């Protein structure tokens, strides 16, 4: 067995000039360069480096992929896998890197006449196992990297999708769009409360026109936000509640001591009124457009 792996080491070392082009060619045929995400030169140098590290691994660790001798080879695979995950390669495309090495490697083994058929097949088998294991490792790293990307994007979406906008002096609006899970609602809540402090807003309008469904937990989160804002000294108005969401809230059995309005516009009118302002029409317009409406301070 040991002698046999020695043969592979020797073969891989002395046949690099035939293995490498064949391998890279197979990778190209499998479409590794099609998307233009990596260059041919890059592919060649990655392949060459891996081949060298694989030879080192074989020389010192045999065909056992868990041997520490495979550390550098695995490290390279992890780097390649991670960068491909970020570049948007598919898992199949990424795994092809390893699996397409089988054919050139076996061709080399078969061309070597010094091995008996039994030895050749035994060697082929153990190399297959080795490459399979390295292939699975590649996929695991790939998967993990993709998961990290997803987690990061979720966080970014949560932050980006909850803008708190200032409607008027002392009046904030939080237009919520999309499904509200607990995690996101929490980000929303903290964001809103922080902005209330920063802008010294008296009234915050939470508009949920763009929210398709509100589950029990989310409704509770919304009500908690309203309660927390009140503790800080600001009032909340919820606008754009859909009929089925209204039902959810009622079924919750939570007493809705929250001011709610049908539309954001209605809520804004209430907010202006509470802060001592009103909207009046400056002059008559033919089409009755709202362009000339201008909020004015209301005398008390």
């Amino acid at each position, binding site marked *: 067995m040991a002698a046999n792996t020695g043969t592979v080491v020797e073969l891989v070392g002395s046949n690099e000039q035939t293995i490498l082009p064949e391998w890279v060619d197979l990778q190209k045929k499998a479409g590794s360069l099609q998307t233009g995400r990596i260059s041919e030169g890059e592919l060649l140098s990655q392949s060459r480096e891996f081949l060298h590290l694989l030879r080192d691994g074989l020389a010192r660790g045999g065909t056992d992929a868990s041997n520490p001798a495979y550390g550098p080879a695995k490290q390279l695979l992890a780097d390649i896998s991670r960068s491909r995950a970020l570049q948007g390669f598919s898992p199949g495309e990424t795994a092809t890197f390893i699996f397409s090495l089988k054919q050139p490697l076996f061709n080399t083994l078969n061309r070597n006449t010094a091995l008996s058929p039994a030895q050749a097949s035994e060697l082929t088998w153990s190399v297959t196992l080795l490459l399979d294991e390295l292939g699975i490792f590649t996929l695991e790293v790939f998967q993990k990297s993709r998961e990290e990307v997803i987690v990061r994007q979720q966080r970014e979406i949560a932050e980006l999708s909850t803008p708190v906008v200032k409607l008027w002096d002392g009046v904030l609006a939080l237009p919520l769009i999309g499904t509200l899970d607990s995690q996101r609602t929490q980000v929303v809540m903290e964001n809103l409360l922080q902005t209330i402090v920063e802008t*010294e807003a008296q009234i915050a309008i939470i508009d949920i026109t763009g929210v398709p469904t509100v589950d029990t937990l989310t409704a509770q989160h919304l009500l908690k936000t309203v309660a927390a804002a009140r*503790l*800080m*000294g600001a009032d909340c108005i919820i606008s754009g509640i859909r009929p089925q969401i209204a039902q959810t809230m009622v079924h919750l059995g939570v007493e809705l001591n929250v001011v709610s309005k049908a539309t954001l516009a209605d809520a804004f009118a209430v907010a202006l009124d509470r802060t*001592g302002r009103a909207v009046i029409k400056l002059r008559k317009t033919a089409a009755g457009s709202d362009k000339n409406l201008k909020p004015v301070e209301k005398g008390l």
Partner: protein
Amino acid sequence: MDRIPILKFGNALLVTIQVDMHDRLATALEEDLTSKIVEHNAKGVLIDISALEIVDSFIGRMLDNIAAVSRILDADTVVVGMRPAVAITLVELGLSLTGVKTALNVERGMELIKARLRTSDTDEEDDVEE
């Protein structure tokens, strides 16, 4: 024993809580405020908690009590400056302090008290524009 200072501010009292209060200090404040309201015939009590990093159920209960007692003595209590993290935690804890009025800062709290004085005493003319 330490006591939290109570300042007179027109016909209102102002308390700024700046330390991590232990329970005895909170109880003492409750007693002190009650007697000061009577002594100065105060119509409003402002409690500034903007420096407080937490409000637990004990301090929450103290605020509730002060509000209830001052209401009986015809004074309004306004708690001002609660931090967002404190507000979120209090709600989670199950305390909503429904009997307590709140404002973002001392200035707004003072406006609340003045507004109430105006409605109860129409002779007093005050400038209320922001």
